[in-house]
């Protein structure tokens, strides 16, 4: 990459926040250096991801919406970014390549690890045999059972301020590999979609932007499925906003819960 252009400058260029002479310098590089051209396109993707995950400052968000999203192509890229984020959030865990385990097996202190790997292999075979046996016996029920067995449902009522003596809902820490489906009760279902943010000790852990309300008995909930391994014992808060047709956000409420061992 051109050493005279840094990532922050490319970001400013994309947000339309660069002096004319520096913008001209970047343009020159885009036309003369294929590396810079690809860098800028890659930075576009990162900027979109930062917008989706709420990692831009308020002024950058405004610049993004007014200066960056001016073409249909970029709007499509944002749409794809949201789609990819939704897919990634739906994944329980990231599969690791086989070679990652090699140091355990071949390392100088590998005896204990080797036993652990062997035990894991035996356990995996046992699970596969069990799953096959169940699926052969009840083929129609297999998918439902598998889904149900890896999902913990938690229904949360809104409440910005918890009165004294009323504790936040308790949630037991989910087993490894499980998803948690948080069902946020809502009364207003007129929003185009909903945005949520999982917060712990004032730190944003996770966000989602394309949630939809759905009926749940006599109520409506906004379901949000997150991976269980995000949660550890402690107090959490979810901030929920609704998105109106014009694209503006409207804060709805906070939802509190406590994760226990």
């Amino acid at each position, binding site marked *: *990459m051109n050493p005279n252009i840094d990532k922050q400058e490319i970001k400013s*260029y*994309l947000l*339309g926040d660069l002096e004319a002479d520096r*913008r001209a310098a*970047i*343009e020159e590089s*885009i*036309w*003369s250096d294929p590396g810079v*051209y*690809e*860098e*800028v*396109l*890659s930075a576009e*993707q*990162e900027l979109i*991801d930062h917008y989706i*995950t709420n990692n831009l400052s308020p002024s950058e968000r405004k610049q993004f919406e007014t*200066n960056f*999203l*001016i*073409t*249909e*192509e*970029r*709007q499509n*890229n944002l*749409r*794809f970014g949201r*789609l*990819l984020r*939704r*897919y*990634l959030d739906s*994944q329980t865990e*990231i*599969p*690791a*390549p086989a070679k*990652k385990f090699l140091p355990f097996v071949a390392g100088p202190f590998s005896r204990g690890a080797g036993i652990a790997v062997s035990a894991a292999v035996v356990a995996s075979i046992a699970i596969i045999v069990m799953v096959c046996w169940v699926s052969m016996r009840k083929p129609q029920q297999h998918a439902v059972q598998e889904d149900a067995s890896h999902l913990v449902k938690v229904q949360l009522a809104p409440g910005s301020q918890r009165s004294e003596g009323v504790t936040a809902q308790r949630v037991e820490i989910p087993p490894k590999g499980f998803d948690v489906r948080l069902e946020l009760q809502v009364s207003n279902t007129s929003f*185009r*979609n909903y945005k949520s943010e999982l917060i712990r000790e004032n*730190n*944003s*852990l*996770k966000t989602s932007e*394309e949630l*939809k309300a759905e009926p749940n008995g006599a109520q409506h909930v906004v379901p949000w499925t997150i991976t269980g391994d995000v949660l550890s014992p402690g107090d959490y808060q979810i901030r929920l906003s609704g998105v109106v*047709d014009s*694209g503006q956000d409207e804060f709805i409420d906070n939802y509190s819960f406590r994760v226990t061992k």
Partner: protein
Amino acid sequence: MNKDWSLSQEAFDALLDWLDSDREQAGIKYEEIRARLILTFTGRSCAEAEDLADETINRVTSRLSAIKEQFTGDRTRYFFGVANKVYMEYLRRKPPQPPPFPPIDSHQVELEFRCLEHCIDNLSKENRHLLLKYYGAEGGSKIDQRKQLAEELGIAPNALRIRAYRIRLGLQECVEKCITQSDQ
């Protein structure tokens, strides 16, 4: 130049011949030039970036016989010079409003999601792993996870970024193709 001048197949062929004698290479160069033009116009806050890119290409093509005789140098950069003139004219015109966000249709979102799953399933094992690990990390763990991934693959962090970008770009193209086929 007449702005209503349209690009005929004959004129387009002449443009490709000028860009490169090898037709495949010429096609690649044409796409790269158009993409750079769009990026340049977008960087200058032009909502009609694609139209201005096409206008630039049309303008070069319409004057190609004269350019062939007079111009020596980097042919790709010639487009940049013409783009600057097109931009100056654009500034004198009333700028159009940016396009509104298209309404979100829940069925379309579900179709897109199914297409994405299909396209991710069709990635090679290595590319799928890279995609999920590179984009899957969030918050503070993101930097560490990407650093670890770069070490695992034996490449520099910047090379990893470009590799992830290319996989994602290919994935987006695959999803768009899948949606188009599903609509037919």
